[in-house]
């Protein structure tokens, strides 16, 4: 999912797609409705859980099935709508995310270990200074309208992403070193990109879900036509309504198992779960089911759950430009004052992994296993030295995500031992990401896991990025990221990234207590469901034979 929160709309002129906030945090509208229902969201799952569990023990664990799939069938997937005017343009912040993986391909995609895999680019190489990148493109690939895929389409897509009228979230990531003048296509199967400054990790940035490839000259129509090279072709699409995609038997990766997928937009989370339990849908996409509801789902006769490990990381960003977090010692105090395991157990029932204030997931090749030991006494003395004694600090939360408030409460009770008094302020979920996030000094938030290291560190932590949620500015950190970009040897790059992580853990404004698993609801008939990061395997998913 994208980086920022959903809000927004699209389609002012034909292709002036204004940037609400992108998709990362699940779907704004669905959550706001949940906030509206408030008690309902809490009461209803408890009611259902009470009826559903019938003493059959605490097995809320998933039974994601793999195995032989029957050829064919139409899978019905419920999804949260991105917006009342969502579109099929992958570069837009209002893209209907779930459709993108069915309709389009990118140049490259992500493997489960985080490395870069070929998709429409079969191979790539860079000049020694990591400035000029040459991609060899797959031949014989056709768009759904029969036109051949060539380098012109790839070049056009990159220009489309950078187009200021489109306001793509990925434009902010790429534009510091990429502009349309650097893109050239010497022949139909070669794409050459010349950056304005070196970036050895450039290819990893093209895995982003805003980077799906569209046909040349389709910028104004792609939002409704959805013409791509993907395993499915668009049959119908109603924004915030129902849509259908049909199998593309000419897909270069082989025909998909399913005949068709029908997407239904359901804004309310409980309604989505009800649809699954009543057999109206086979899978709930981009929905993290909370603990109580997951027990109901596993106890039902037709549905079960699947777990995507460490799918989200939760963060309490401290705004480093606001008091008291301008002092790095105060930030350290807040970071070592709490017990991560307690927060993990309280907020998500232990379903996840402790993170120790490092937002890089342990499976990443560049991960640094560096701990800062929780130490409430040291926190106390740090605060006293900073002149704060027993501080009272406001912490903002909302019902935007089910975990935010439990996490805030868990943090509040955990830091009491360090003499820190937290007073929790509940803000409206509707405007949480416009009024609270990046505005108030201290709040709770989350991101989806799956960004490659260059994207993660530069986009969320580096000074100058519009998504730098703590407004943290550290010259040494930025310099290390630039050094990493200039370094063509992967092992040496890793050293730079690890040094950067150490600075991040020690002095940034981000408290990262844990990575949480995502629990997806699906029918017991579904086999080969596989999802990690921002990748969903639409090719092999199917129904039990």
């Amino acid at each position, binding site marked *: 999912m994208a980086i920022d929160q959903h809000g927004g709309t699209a389609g002012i002129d034909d292709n002036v797609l204004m940037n609400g906030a992108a998709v990362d945090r699940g779907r704004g509208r669905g959550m706001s409705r949940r906030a509206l229902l408030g008690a*309902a969201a809490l009461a209803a799952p408890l009611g259902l859980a009470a009826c559903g569990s019938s003493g059959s023990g605490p097995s809320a664990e998933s039974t994601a099935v793999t195995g032989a799939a029957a050829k064919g069938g139409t899978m019905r997937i419920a999804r949260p709508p991105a917006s009342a005017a969502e579109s099929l343009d992958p570069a837009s912040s209002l893209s209907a995310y779930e459709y993108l993986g069915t309709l389009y391909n990118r140049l490259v995609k992500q493997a489960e270990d985080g490395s870069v895999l070929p998709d429409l680019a079969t191979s790539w190489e860079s000049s020694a200074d990591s400035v000029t990148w040459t991609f060899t493109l797959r031949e014989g690939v056709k768009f759904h309208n029969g036109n051949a895929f060539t380098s012109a389409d790839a070049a056009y897509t990159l220009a489309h992403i950078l187009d200021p009228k489109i306001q793509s979230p990925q434009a902010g990531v790429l534009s510091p070193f990429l502009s349309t003048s650097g893109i050239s296509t010497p022949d139909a199967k070669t794409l050459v990109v010349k950056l304005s400054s070196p970036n050895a990790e450039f290819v990893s940035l093209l895995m982003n879900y805003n980077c799906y490839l569209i046909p040349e000259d389709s910028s104004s129509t792609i939002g409704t036509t959805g013409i791509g090279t993907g395993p499915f072709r668009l049959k119908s699409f*109603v924004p915030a309504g129902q849509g259908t995609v049909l199998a593309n038997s000419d897909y270069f990766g082989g025909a998909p198992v399913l005949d068709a997928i029908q997407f239904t937009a359901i804004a309310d989370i409980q309604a989505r779960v009800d649809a699954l339990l009543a057999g109206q849908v086979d899978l709930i996409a981009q929905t993290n089911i909370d603990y109580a509801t997951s027990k109901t789902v596993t106890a039902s006769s037709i549905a079960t759950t699947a777990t995507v490990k460490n799918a989200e990381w939760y963060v309490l960003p401290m705004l480093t430009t606001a008091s008291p977090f301008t002092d790095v010692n105060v930030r350290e105090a807040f970071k070592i004052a709490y017990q991560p395991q307690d927060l993990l157990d309280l907020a998500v029932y232990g379903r996840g992994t402790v993170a120790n204030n490092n937002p890089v997931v342990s499976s990443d090749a560049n991960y640094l296993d560096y701990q800062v030991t929780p130490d409430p006494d040291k926190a106390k003395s740090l605060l006293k030295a900073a002149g704060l004694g027993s501080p009272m600090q406001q912490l903002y939360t909302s019902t935007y995500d089910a975990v935010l408030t439990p996490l805030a409460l868990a943090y509040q009770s955990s830091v009491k031992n360090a003499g820190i008094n937290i007073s929790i302020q509940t803000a409206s979920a509707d405007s949480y990401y416009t009024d609270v996030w990046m505005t108030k000094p201290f709040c709770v938030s989350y991101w989806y896991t799956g960004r490659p290291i260059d994207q993660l560190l530069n986009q969320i932590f580096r000074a100058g990025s519009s998504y730098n949620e703590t407004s943290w500015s550290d010259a040494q950190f930025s310099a290390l990221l630039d050094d990493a970009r200039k370094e063509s040897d992967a092992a040496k790059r890793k050293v730079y990234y690890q040094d950067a992580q150490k600075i991040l853990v020690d002095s940034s404004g981000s408290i990262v207590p844990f990575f949480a698993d995502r629990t997806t609801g699906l029918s017991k008939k579904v086999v080969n469901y596989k999802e990690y990061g921002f990748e969903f395997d639409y090719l092999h998913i199917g129904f039990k034979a």
Partner: protein
Amino acid sequence: MLLVKAIGRRLGYSVLTVLLATLLVFVALQALPGNLATQLLGQNATPAAVAQLDASLGLNRPAWQRYLDWLGGALHGDFGRSLVSQQPVLTEAGGYLRNTALLAGIVIVAGITLSLVLGVIAGLTRDRWPDLAISGLSLLGMSVPEFTVATLLVLAFAIRLNWFPAVVTAGPTATVGELLPAVWLPAAALTAVMAAYIIRMMRTSVIDVMSAEYVTLARVRGLSSARVLFRHALPNALLPTLNVIAINIAWLVGGVVVVESVFNYPGIGTLMIQAVHNRDLPVLQFIAVFGALTFVVCNLLADLAALWLNPRLRTPGRAG
């Protein structure tokens, strides 16, 4: 003549009510934090981006000018375009209105009729078991929040018994055929919540009327129970209930947001919530006009029905 004057005056007040409603909605929306531009741009609401969007949508004109422009258009039937989807508001809202009409229609025809009948039965069998059962159940329906009733209905009839679908999957462009199987549970939820007021109102008036002197006189004069009930008692008993019914109809048509949300029913309540979230003013103004009009018309019809049922009200000041 007097009647015409009375109706004319009522119509005048109705128009004023609708106008005031639109003005209130407009003012309220201005008072909300953020405007359309910040809501659309969210995180990327830099001052430059906001200014650009404001200009392109005409949001940088003064508030009173925007309101008058809208009003001018509305009087000609042009409610403008949705700021979100750029579709004409009438087109956009049309589908949602039709879906709400379907749901409201079913609840009005089946639910209100049922409530009236139950109310009469309860009134006629006061303190005996039918009355106790009906009154007890209606009290329960009144006290339990509508989302709880809705969720319990889904659990029982959609998930356990599988008689009805749990949610509407077809979206705002659903046809009537697609909505019909899914409309019964929301209708039941709405009826459960609404029935209590009508039942209790009807019960009280039936009890009152049945103990009135003219009913006793009619009985004494040998009229059959049925004739006494239907010709003399019920029309009078219905009078106080008419306003309750009118308010409930207006509520049904104006958008039952919570129930629509639980069932994913694409009605006008759903559109309203979307529009508020997006600060989509033209759509909200249209919904305000529609809601106010509905309320005013329902009340007008209730008054006309009262006039029809009670001839004494036709001449002013002599209702005794």
